[in-house]
């Protein structure tokens, strides 16, 4: 167990590599109840979300979810989150545990009459069922029409006899679901999902596997790969930012950067010799320090030592030769495509 953002969290149950493989090949069950839930209710709820997030919430029909970001006025990333439209005037924001309090303060500071903001984190448990067999596992416990549930959509219904809000979302690069449930019913839901998961050859999975899975999938971790001093354009999340929608916090700075171009970019790299890149390691080009590693690991799926790093735009092309300084040694590396791992999707 490890302490994370004030929550006692399992780093692993059976071993990170084994849990990682279970998610890639079968199914894994994560308890991510530490994630924050913020509800915004009222006639101004949608407008408030539109003003505070960089993606376009006007596109959301009831039951739709969307990956989006809170940015500051400088266009820096305060948090990444999923926003769901639960009703005509009801929004649900699922945010990072470490940022829940700051996010809540940010939303409250910008709220206007007609939008009531509430921290619902203590009321909900959140479980993530991830992997190519996630749908088969979940089907055993619910009559919900799961094949019809498209990515980034959600449904209310019964799973294992419990009221849940199920979305087809996740943070592993695999198909999967996240299930929001009343906190007091969370242990019962965990038990039911775990039994079905184990029957399929899946495993419970901890924070360790969650980190290697998301890294292979090229998904940035907020606070590690991006923060208030890096913009979504630099972090490779330009697709999330809708500059053409009505004004939002950070728009002016991001529009300006989009015009000028980014001077640095978050890229994926492979080391050419064994070594584990760590957050803060220096990245060199022709012996000159040009950037910094933000995340790294030995990829359990690929067997390679991989990482993410900010480098100058001129060094961001796939194939660019770099080196990474680990404990005073300079290890050769080169820029590779992000994501490192892409699941095979059925046609």
């Amino acid at each position: 167990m490890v302490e994370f953002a004030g929550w006692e969290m399992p780093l692993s149950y059976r071993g990170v590599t084994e849990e990682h493989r279970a998610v890639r090949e079968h199914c894994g069950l994560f308890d991510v109840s530490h994630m924050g839930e913020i509800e915004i209710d009222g006639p101004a709820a949608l407008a408030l979300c539109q003003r505070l997030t960089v993606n376009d919430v006007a596109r959301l029909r009831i039951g739709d979810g969307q990956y989006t970001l809170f940015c500051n006025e400088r266009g820096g990333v305060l948090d990444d989150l999923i926003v769901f439209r639960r009703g005509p005037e009801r929004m649900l924001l699922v945010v990072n545990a470490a940022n829940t309090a700051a996010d809540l303060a940010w939303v409250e500071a910008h709220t206007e009459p007609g939008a009531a903001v509430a921290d619902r984190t203590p009321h909900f448990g959140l479980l993530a069922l991830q992997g190519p067999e996630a749908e088969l596992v979940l089907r055993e416990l619910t009559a919900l029409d799961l094949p019809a549930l498209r990515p980034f959509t959600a449904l209310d219904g019964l799973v294992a006899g419990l009221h849940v809000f199920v979305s087809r979302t996740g943070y592993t690069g695999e198909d999967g679901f996240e299930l929001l449930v009343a906190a007091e019913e969370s242990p019962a839901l965990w038990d039911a999902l775990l039994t079905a998961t184990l029957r399929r050859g899946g495993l419970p999975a901890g924070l360790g596997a969650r980190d290697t899975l998301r890294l292979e999938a090229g998904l940035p971790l907020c606070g590690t790969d991006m923060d208030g001093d890096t913009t979504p354009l630099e972090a490779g999340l330009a697709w999330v930012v809708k500059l053409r929608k009505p004004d939002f916090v950070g728009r002016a700075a991001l529009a300006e950067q989009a015009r000028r171009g980014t001077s640095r970019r978050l890229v994926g790299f492979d080391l050419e010799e064994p070594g584990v890149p760590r957050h803060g390691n220096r990245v060199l080009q022709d012996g000159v320090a040009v950037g910094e590693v933000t995340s790294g690991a030995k990829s359990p799926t690929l067997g390679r030592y991989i990482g993410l790093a900010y480098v100058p735009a001129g060094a961001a092309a796939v194939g660019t030769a770099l080196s990474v300084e680990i404990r005073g040694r300079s290890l050769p590396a080169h820029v590779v495509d992000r994501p490192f791992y892409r699941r095979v999707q059925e046609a």
Partner: protein
Amino acid sequence: MEFPEDLRYTKDHEWLRFEGEESIVGITDFAQDALGDVVFVELPAVGTVLSQGQTFGVVESNKTVSDLFAPIGGRVTAVNQALHDAPERVNHDPYGQGWMIRLAPARREDADALLDAGAYRALVASEKR
């Protein structure tokens, strides 16, 4: 968890085994379990002279980096090159294929300061709480 009787142990969770004039060093079953899946081991060059308690390398899982400490002083006569491509051997066989370095001891008496299996077992029990 296994702690063979014929080994000596450090409080930092290395083990030492005498084999003729030389000694072999690795990390314990407890250490490999606490680290999780080992993904990288950095070892010194053959010929390096170490004093007792000196850092001789690192062992890494995806989550943590731990220093390795020499249980006794001596000169490194061999390192386990196989760990370069197969660091997981430290997890699978910590007292066998997961060995790390061979040392020509400077003074065998250095080992008197180390724990025997019983004392190490007690240390592990206290660390597990």
